[in-house]
């Protein structure tokens, strides 16, 4: 069982994706099948960028055992008032500045859903959001 933790700074797009890149490197080193790595990379990048784009600060915890990769991305931030709506492709509250950079398509949460076996979103308005992503290694 491997347990790693990464800090994610809200608002800091210069480091967006760094935690995901490091985790991907580790998944490669411990020989997780490439097909799984590709999908996990997509999901965790989206979760990481959402903290950067929408929250104040957060952390990504990674738990790996022989049967699964479990990621927990939790943040302190505004939270999501309507998770069902947020999960719709195309829904986004991203600011104009964030959209200018090519974020804010409203595809991040749907991308997560498509690329993991289990996904759970827990959010409290005014407090923060927790995204849990599980991939079973078969």
């Amino acid at each position: 069982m491997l347990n790693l933790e990464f800090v994610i700074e809200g608002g800091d797009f210069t480091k967006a994706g760094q935690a995901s890149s490091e985790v991907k490197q580790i998944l490669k080193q411990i020989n997780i099948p490439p097909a799984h790595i590709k999908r996990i990379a997509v999901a965790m990048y989206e979760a990481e960028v959402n903290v950067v784009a929408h929250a104040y600060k957060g952390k990504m915890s990674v738990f790996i055992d022989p049967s699964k990769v479990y990621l927990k991305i939790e943040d302190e931030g505004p939270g999501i008032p309507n998770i069902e709506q947020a999960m719709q492709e195309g829904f986004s509250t991203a600011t104009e500045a964030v959209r200018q950079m090519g974020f804010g398509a409203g595809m991040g949460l749907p991308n997560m859903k498509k690329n993991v076996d289990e996904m759970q979103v827990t959010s409290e308005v005014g407090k923060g959001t927790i995204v849990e992503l599980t991939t079973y290694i078969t």
Partner: protein
Amino acid sequence: MGNRPVSKINVDTKQDKKRNMKLKEIIEKLNLTVICANDQFENEVSGGYCSDLLSDVMGNATEGQIWITIQVHKNIIAVASLKELSAIVIVKGLEPGEDTIETAKKENIVLLSSNETAFDLAGKLYGLIN
């Protein structure tokens, strides 16, 4: 009954018409400027993806493709790296900042540029590969 000419051919339905080209051939044929690259010139390119939305590329591009975009900020490097794309082509003569180039070098990502529009370049790339 008159004599009708009969001809018969075997149609090879399995043949894959798609040509895999090396990155260096594509750079040459499309007249692309190399902003940074290492030893990837012999790598095979599997196709292309054209988008300026990062999540769209994350969700829909596949390994080995060339990514055509007008985005120039450094976040494109993380996307290309996580997706293992073969190169990023920045179109319309736009220039990436120093930090984008630095990150591309560090992450070993091929960064190319073209003066053409995304439409024109994608059309030519499609013609080359398909």
